[in-house]
C-alpha cells in the first residue's frame, strides 16, 4: 500500500504529525521519502526504509519521535514538483495530485542551469524569428485600408445648357472605378450645377474662396468666390439619396430630397428637414464653357462635419 497524503504519522512512541509531501525516485518510480509536518515544528524528510506499516490513514514508523525530530529540516529547494518536470510513466505509479509529489532537483541543473540557458535561448531565437514577421504581415493586411482619395478631374460637359440663374441643373456623367484586382467599372454620377447670382454666391462663399485639401492637408484646389458656377454633389448629406430641383408651394424652387424631405435652397443651405449640414460643394473648374470639369467630393452622410469619403 502506498502512503497517502494527509495521513497521520505515528512513531514507535507517539503521533508526530502528518504526511504533507511525497518524494519519488525518478529511476525506480517508487516513493523514496515522506515529508512529515512535525505538528508545527517544521518538516522532516523520512525515508521509506524507516516505515514499518502503511494503512489507509496511518503511517507507522520504526524510529522514535526524538529520532525523527533529530533529522535535519526538509529542504524544499532541493526538490521540484511534477509540474516542473516530466517523467514518463510516473503517473501510473502514483495517484495523488501532482503538485504534492516531489522529485529531487537534478545535480546537473542546480548550478550550471545549462538546460535553463538553452530553454531561454530557444525562446529568444523563436522571438527573433517571429517578431520580424509581424511587420510584413501587418503591412500586408493594411494595404487597402488607407487607399488615397480619388481626386481625378471628371468632365461633366457643356455648362451652356444652364439657362436660368439660381436654378439647379443636373449633369450626369460616368466615373471609372478600379478597386484592387477587380476589372475597371463605370458608375453613373450626377451633380447639380447652379449658375449663381452674386447674392447666392455670397451665401455660399461668405466672402472667402473655398479651399479643398487632401488627406495630408495640402491644398488641392481653390474655388474662387467670383466664379458663378457652383457644383453640388448629387447626394443628399442626410443619408445619401439623390435629390431633385422642385417647386415648393411655400418656399418656391428648391432642392428637395424625396427620401426624408430635406429641403435646400439654391446655395445649398438647409431650409427644412433632417439634413445635418448644407449640400456638399465639389471642386469645380471651367476654363471654357464646353470643357467644365469637377472632382467628386463626397462626404459621409448623416454627419455634421464634412469627413470625406472616397
Amino acid at each position, binding site marked *: 500500500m502506498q502512503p497517502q497524503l494527509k495521513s497521520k504519522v505515528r512513531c514507535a512512541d507517539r503521533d508526530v504529525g502528518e504526511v504533507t509531501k511525497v*518524494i519519488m525516485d525518478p529511476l525506480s518510480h517508487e516513493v523514496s521519502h515522506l515529508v512529515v509536518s512535525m505538528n508545527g515544528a517544521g518538516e522532516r524528510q523520512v525515508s521509506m526504509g524507516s516505515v514499518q506499516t502503511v494503512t489507509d490513514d496511518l503511517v507507522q514508523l520504526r524510529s522514535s519521535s526524538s529520532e525523527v525530530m533529530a533529522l535535519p529540516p526538509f529542504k524544499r529547494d532541493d526538490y521540484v514538483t511534477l509540474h516542473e518536470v516530466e517523467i514518463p510513466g510516473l503517473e501510473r505509479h502514483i495517484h495523488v495530485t501532482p503538485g504534492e509529489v516531489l522529485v529531487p532537483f537534478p545535480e546537473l541543473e542546480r548550478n550550471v542551469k545549462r538546460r535553463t540557458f538553452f530553454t531561454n535561448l530557444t525562446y529568444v531565437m523563436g522571438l527573433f524569428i517571429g517578431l520580424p514577421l509581424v511587420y510584413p504581415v501587418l503591412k500586408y493586411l493594411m494595404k487597402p485600408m488607407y487607399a488615397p482619395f480619388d481626386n481625378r478631374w471628371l468632365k461633366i460637359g457643356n455648362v451652356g445648357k444652364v439657362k436660368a440663374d439660381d436654378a439647379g441643373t443636373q449633369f450626369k456623367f460616368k466615373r471609372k472605378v478600379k478597386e484592387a484586382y477587380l476589372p475597371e467599372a463605370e458608375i453613373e454620377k450626377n451633380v447639380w450645377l447652379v449658375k449663381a447670382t452674386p447674392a447666392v454666391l455670397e451665401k455660399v462663399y461668405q466672402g472667402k474662396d473655398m479651399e479643398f485639401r487632401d488627406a495630408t492637408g495640402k491644398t488641392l484646389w481653390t474655388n474662387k468666390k467670383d466664379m458663378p458656377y457652383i457644383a453640388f454633389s448629387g447626394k443628399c448629406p442626410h443619408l445619401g439619396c439623390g435629390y431633385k430641383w422642385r417647386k415648393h408651394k411655400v418656399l418656391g424652387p428648391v432642392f428637395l430630397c424625396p427620401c426624408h424631405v430635406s429641403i435646400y435652397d439654391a446655395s445649398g443651405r438647409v431650409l427644412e428637414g433632417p439634413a445635418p449640414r448644407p449640400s456638399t460643394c465639389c471642386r469645380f473648374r471651367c476654363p471654357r464653357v464646353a470643357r467644365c470639369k469637377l472632382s467628386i467630393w463626397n462626404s459621409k452622410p448623416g454627419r455634421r462635419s464634412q469627413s470625406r469619403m472616397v
Partner: protein
Amino acid sequence: MEFKAGTKVPIADGLDEPYSCSFSRHAANGRRKVFDFVDERVGLKLLAAKMLNESVPGGSRWAYVFGSVLLFIFIMQAVTGVLLMFYYVPTADHAYASTQYILHDVDYGWFLLSYHFWGSSAMVVCVFAHMSQVFLWGAYKKPRELIWLVGLALFGLVMGFGFTGYLLPWDQRAYWATTVGVEIMDKTPLIGDFLARLLKGGATPGQMTLSRFFRHSRHGAPRSPDWVGRVASLPL
C-alpha cells in the same frame, strides 16, 4: 532501493538521466505572478516540458527532426494560407487577377505567397524524408502499425494539398498541370472517369474545378492538425 532518512536520492548523471527540468526559481516577482496565473490555467510549464524535455530513447538524432519540421511547416502553411485568403478569390474571373494583385501590389504579398508556395514543396520533401526515416528505423513495427497507416493517409493529404493548391493561381501552368494530373487519374480502370469528373466537377476543367480544389486546399486543412499532432506525438 533503500535509503537512509534525510539522504538525497542518488540520480544518474549525464545524458541518460530519466528527466530534467527547465525553469527559473528566481524570476522577478511580478512577472512571476502573471506567469503563474496563466500557467495555472493553461499549463505553460507542462507544455514547455513536453516540447523541450521530450525523452528520446537512445538519445536524440538529426534524423528524428522531420516529423517536427513537418508540423512546423504545416502550421506556417495554415497561417500563410489564411493570410492569402484575405485577398485571393477562388473564381475563374478573379483568381488570376487576385493572385497577381497579391504578388505585385500588396505589401509583402510576394513574400507570403512565395512562403506558401515553397512551403508546400518543402512539405512534400519532408514527408518523404520522414517516411523514409520511419521505414529505415523500423518505427512502423508493432505496436505502431496503425500510426504508419495514419501516416500513409497524411501522406495522401499532403500530396492532395500540393496538387490542389497548384491550381489556385489559375495561370497557364496551374491549369495545364491540373489537366495533366486529372487526365492521369482518368485512365484508372473502371472508376477513372468517375474520379476525374469528381475532381473536375464536370467534363472539362473550369470554375467547378477551381471551387473544388480551393475547397480541398482551404477546408481540408482545419481537419488535419489533429491528425498531424497525433502522428507527431504518438511515437513517444
